[in-house]
Every structure is written in structure tokens, then in C-alpha cells.
């Protein structure tokens, strides 16, 4: 079927599509960046531009202001925007697995969320997912923001941990990986996914884009699926291409490890069943409810309205 579709689209004019990312072009997004080389999108008549951003909020704002069509953002930013009454649609689940964790040095003996009580915990920045996921984790353990001291440590958040200025620090799996390489010794890791596995990143569009550009979006998602599959199947090739296309891709070995982690985060039991990008409504609804309970958002969100799986090419 793919071959046929390719032929159909190739005589159409190239459709341009702008993806607002939450970050700069980084290794974990290699599949999105190597279109020049691999042509996942080009072959389907898509001219994809990736707009860099500083956080998921930027990505959402960029689609709201019409600077981009698709936002590559985290559920937290999504919830916040929905809370403000914006009409958005989640169309694809990029990383169904939650990649956030709480890291502490072995000697602190923090093995379960309850142990965090009264501790100083570093987060990358108040804007980042690290803080929200930390709160989610605390919430699961019956703790609140008041029971701990959250400090912003900037992005090199393992340094204060090693220096002993914080007892624990919220991080991502890739962060932890790099941190370990940089000599972070024996650590305890609490993974958020063990408590509430809210997806890490999703593709979001405005309702307007959704209704007006359905076909293009469909094509895009299919191409993205292909590219993600390619990355899962050929991590070495992706790692070596990242050297050229990703800003942080200097070290091929490290690229490979990051890509492996991201590949793992891209699949879940649901995706095994339905194909990459499948969205789990329940878990997102749980996430939204938790956010509301935490006081991060004011209204109760009905995620059903904001989620649609109809654009995803099912298995």
C-alpha cells in the first residue's frame, strides 16, 4: 500500500508543514530531522520544517499564534493550554512511556516516594516537565509540594546532587544516562512511570488545523510512524546521522544510547496492539485529573474531547 500512496502524492504539489518542537534539534528527534537524507516526509509530498523552542509551552504557543501547525509538546503544557480554554487536539502519542525519574545518591537511601518527605529536590526549571512529574509522583505517595523543598537547579541538575546541595533531583532517562557517564556514582532511581505512566510527549494541533488539514496531518503521522519505525529498526544508522543533524550529536556512542532509550519510550503494550502513536485516553484523563488535584489547573478537563485517534494509521 505504501508504494501506491507514494505515487499518488508525488505528483501533488509539496505541502509545507511546520512542527513546533519543545527543544532544539536534538538526537532523540533524529527521525524528524533527517528528512533530507531519508525522505520520510518528502516522499509523501511534505516539506517539514522543525521550529525550535524552549519548552513545551513554546511549542503550544507557536501553534496558537499560527507560527506552526503541529506542536511536539508534553501533556503538562497541553493541560495548561486546555485549562485556559484553548481548543486543541492530541493526534499522536510520541512517547507513551513516562521517561521522568527522581534520582538520589545511594547513601541517602531514598527508595520510595514517601522517603522524599522533607527533602530538598532539584528540578531543571520550574517550566520543565521535571517539576510537574515530580509533583505527580509525590501526589501518588500522598505528599504535596509543601512536604518537600523544590529548588531550580538549571539544566545541569546532577551537579548540585553530586555536590550535596540537593538530596534528590528530578530528571529524565536520557539525563540520567548522561549523568552516569559523567561519573554520577551509585544512585537510587524512582521512575514516575511506575506510579502514573503519563506519556512524555504528544503531537498536538489546534482544532482549526485539525479540521482544515486532516489529510495532510494524516500523511504526516504516517510518515512519522515510518520514521519512528526506521529509528527503532536502525538505531546505529540514526546515531550516525544524528552526528550531522542534531546539535547535541557529537558523540555517536552516546547518540546510540539515547536513541535506544527513546525507542523504548516509543512503544507500549498499546502500540504493540494498535501501532505506533496510539493514544491511551484513560491515562491522559488520569493525568489531567491529577493536575487538577494538584491545583496546577483549575478546571476539570474532559480529555475525550481533546483526543482523537482517527488520523493515526492503525496496524
Amino acid at each position, binding site marked *: 500500500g505504501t508504494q501506491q500512496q507514494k505515487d499518488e502524492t508525488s505528483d501533488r504539489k509539496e505541502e509545507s508543514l511546520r512542527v513546533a518542537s519543545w527543544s532544539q534539534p536534538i538526537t532523540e528527534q533524529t527521525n524528524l530531522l533527517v528528512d533530507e537524507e531519508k525522505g520520510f516526509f518528502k516522499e509523501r509530498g511534505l516539506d517539514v520544517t522543525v521550529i525550535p523552542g524552549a*519548552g513545551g*509551552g513554546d511549542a*503550544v*504557543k507557536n501553534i*496558537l*499564534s499560527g507560527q506552526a501547525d503541529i506542536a511536539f509538546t508534553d501533556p*503538562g*503544557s497541553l493541560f*495548561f*493550554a486546555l485549562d*485556559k480554554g*484553548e481548543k486543541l487536539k492530541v493526534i499522536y502519542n510520541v512517547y507513551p512511556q513516562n521517561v521522568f525519574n527522581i534520582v538520589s545518591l545511594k547513601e541517602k537511601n531514598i527508595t520510595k516516594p514517601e522517603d522524599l518527605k522533607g527533602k530538598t529536590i532539584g528540578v531543571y*526549571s*520550574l*517550566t*520543565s516537565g521535571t*517539576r*510537574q512529574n515530580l509533583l505527580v509522583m509525590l501526589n501518588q505517595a500522598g505528599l504535596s509540594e509543601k512536604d518537600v523543598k*523544590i*529548588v*531550580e*537547579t*538549571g539544566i*545541569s541538575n546532577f*551537579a*548540585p546532587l553530586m*555536590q550535596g*546541595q540537593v538530596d534528590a533531583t528530578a530528571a529524565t532517562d536520557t539525563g540520567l544516562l548522561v549523568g552516569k557517564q559523567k561519573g554520577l556514582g551509585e544512585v537510587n532511581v524512582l521512575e514516575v512511570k511506575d506510579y502514573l505512566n503519563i506519556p512524555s510527549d504528544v503531537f498536538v494541533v489546534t482544532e482549526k488545523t485539525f479540521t482544515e488539514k486532516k489529510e495532510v496531518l494524516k500523511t504526516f503521522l504516517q510518515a512519522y510512524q515510518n520514521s519512528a519505525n526506521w529509528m527503532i529498526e536502525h538505531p546505529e544508522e540514526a546515531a550516525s546521522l544524528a552526528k550531522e543533524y542534531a546539535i547535541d550529536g557529537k558523540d555517536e556512542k552516546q547518540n546510540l544510547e539515547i536513541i535506544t532509550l527513546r525507542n523504548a519510550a516509543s512503544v507500549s503494550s498499546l502500540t504493540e496492539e494498535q501501532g505506533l502513536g496510539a493514544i491511551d485516553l484513560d491515562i491522559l484523563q488520569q493525568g489531567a485529573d491529577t493536575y487538577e488535584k494538584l491545583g*496546577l489547573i483549575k478546571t476539570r478537563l474532559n480529555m475525550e474531547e481533546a483526543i482523537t485517534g482517527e488520523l493515526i494509521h492503525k496496524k
Partner: protein
Amino acid sequence: MMKNVQLYSFLLFIVLIVSWEITAGNMSELVLPAPSVIFFTLIDGIKSGYFLPHITRTAAEIVLGLFLGSLFGFVIGLLMGEIEFLRKLLFPYVIASQAVPKLALAPLFILWFGFGMTSKVVITALICFFPLLENTVTSIQYMDKQKIELFRMLKASRWQTLIHLKIPAGMPGILAGLRVAVVLAVVGAVVGEFIGGSEGLGAVIIASQAMMDTPLMFASLLLLTIMGMGLYQLVNIIEKIWLKPYKKGSKK
């Protein structure tokens, strides 16, 4: 003419606000909130006392940082202006301290100065010290040769020449540096609070960005602008008092 300034200024303000309001109407509040929304957020925040601790904190950081930064800038400016040796010796480090974005050094600042107010004050001081330094160095160097000869003839020490000649004669330039410094101090404090602050308007901005509460962010920016303007005007008042004798006859 001058009486009309107020009028025109007011008119321009109204025009800008109205066109902003209109532009914002066509846009998501998350991207650009309308001035009216910002205004009500601000009023609410002030009434409820939400802003108070943040304003106090940021103001304290600005004042302290500005004081330290401009004092250092001025004193080191004097030293570097007077002693060519020091000028040549220190200048690369001064530039390095300025060309490096402070945000990038966050972990180091936290390591050295902790999470508390100190690191923010240091960053503020570091940011606002340069314009004062540069202007001081320059202002005390271009001196009327005749006056320098007068002071040499009167056997004034280097210190006396500074106090009685170079500083007063360079005052207009030094105050221009101070005006730049006060405005940069505002930015400095906020950037400091971006890096691991939990209180202060910078932290409010970051938090409001995280929660995508753009009106709150703009309200904080408004407060910062007001602070900056207040400080700037304060320097102007000082200047008016201090420089009255310069203007006598030297300006129409």
C-alpha cells in the same frame, strides 16, 4: 510645546494600548493577552497580596545588586582609568565576565553562592557593573589639559585630582553609565531569579510560563518596567541636583 508633551505622551499611550487591545483580540491569550486582561491580573495580584513578597524580593535584589555593582563598577573604573597598567591587565577578565551569558553559568553561581538571595545579587551586580565601569574609565580620561596642569601646579595628589577634578568633570558621562546600569540591574535580578529562584518576579515569570499563564507573566513584566522607570527617574533627579552648576551657562 513642553506643556503638550504630557498630552502627546498620553495620546501615544492610548493609541498603543488600543491597538494592542485590538491585536490581542484576534489572538490567543496564551500568546498575547490584552492590556485590559493584564491590568486586571495585576490589580487582582496586588489586592490579594500575591505580588507583594515577589516585588519586595526582586526590589531588594535590584537595590543591593545595583549598589554593589555600581560601586564596584565606579571604583574599578576609577582604578582602571587612572592606572593604565591595571586597565591592560584586567580588561580581558572584565570582557569575559560580560560576554558570558549569566544564565549559562547558573550551576556555578549556585555552587558558589547558594540558592538564596546572594547568587541573585551577585548576578545583578555583575550585569550592571560594566556600563558604569566603561563610562567611568572613559569619562575620567578626556580631561582638559589646562585643568590637569592646574592641579599639577597645585601639587594635588592623584586622589585629590580624582575627587576634585576628574570625577566632577566626568560626572555627566558617569551618570549616563549609571542610567544604563539601573535598567540592566532590573534584567539582572530577573535573570538571577530564572536560575533557581522560588521567590521574586523572575520566578513568577518562569512559573507563569510553565503554567502558560501569560497574563500573569505580562503583569510581572509590567511591574519590572515600572521599577526600571522609577530607578531611571531617580538617577535623573540626582543628576538634576548634582549637575545644576554644569548646566548653568553650558546649556541654553
